């Protein structure tokens, strides 16, 4: 067994475990935002570890290069999705206050819990 095989043998299961934990969290966490944490994030590290595990098996550098692109685009796109869904849910009022210990948006009071948008109008209730 070569060094590359050892790296693969370690990284692939660990990456798969992180992905599985993410799926479990998405199933078990109490509200939308905490589910979103589980649904979008552990997959990132899971995928990166799996890519790292696959790379030694690719044989040549040029065969492994696209894996780098996959990882890069995952890092580029995952936060956009997470932010968009989380922001939309927040502005739509889908926040379970029972799961919050600290909510600093409430002190704004009558303006509504979200920031006014750029044109100076407030987003509709």
């Amino acid at each position, binding site marked *: 067994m070569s060094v590359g095989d050892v790296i693969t043998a370690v990284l692939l299961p660990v990456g798969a475990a992180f992905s599985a934990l993410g799926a479990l969290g998405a199933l078990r*966490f*109490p509200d939308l*935002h905490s589910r979103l*944490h589980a649904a979008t994030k*552990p997959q990132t590290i899971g995928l990166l570890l799996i890519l790292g595990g696959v790379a030694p098996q690719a044989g040549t550098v040029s065969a492994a290069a696209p894996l780098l692109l996959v990882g890069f685009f995952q*890092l580029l796109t995952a936060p956009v999705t997470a932010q968009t869904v*989380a922001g939309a849910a927040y502005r739509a009022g889908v926040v379970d206050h029972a*799961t919050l210990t*600290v909510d600093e948006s409430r002190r704004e009071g009558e303006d509504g819990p979200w920031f006014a948008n750029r044109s*100076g109008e407030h987003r509709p209730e």
Partner: protein
Amino acid sequence: MNRNARRAASRVLMGVWLLGIWLLLWGRIDALTVAGGAVVVAGAYAASRLPAVPLVRRIRPLRVAAVIAEFAWDLLVSSVVIGWHALYRPRQVRSGIIDVDMRSRSELILLGVTTSISLRPGTILIDLDPDRTVLRIHAMPVRSRAEADSRRAGVATTEERLMRAFVTWEDAPPEEDDR
């Protein structure tokens, strides 16, 4: 470097970057793929009218390495934390909505901070004020006000590291007024 020169440099760098992706996708570098890539990049640029991405004044490579190392470590630690909570009493996990004041006026730093926040488990950006000076984040687990404060401090530290790694035109304007 005046504004036009900066815009031109930004476009050239973006072109080089797109060419790099093209070559990675082909998986080989020879005269034909480079020439073909140059044509495709020029065509894509003309068709899409990509905006000029703001440039940074200076990059400190060691600080960039520190930012990446910090991010990788945070990603690992917070993934383990969220994973643990997924296994142990997931229904009792508590969160917080926290406002963080931004120090930087640079959009690049803002992008770096928000990407970093939203990539690591446990924090998501949910809102941004109109002046882009306050980030509103959803963080978990947050069990107390002290934990909320330490999360806020963590985001501020990330911003500070990014500002040290990337010296931007907005945060450190040049002495001479050539902007």
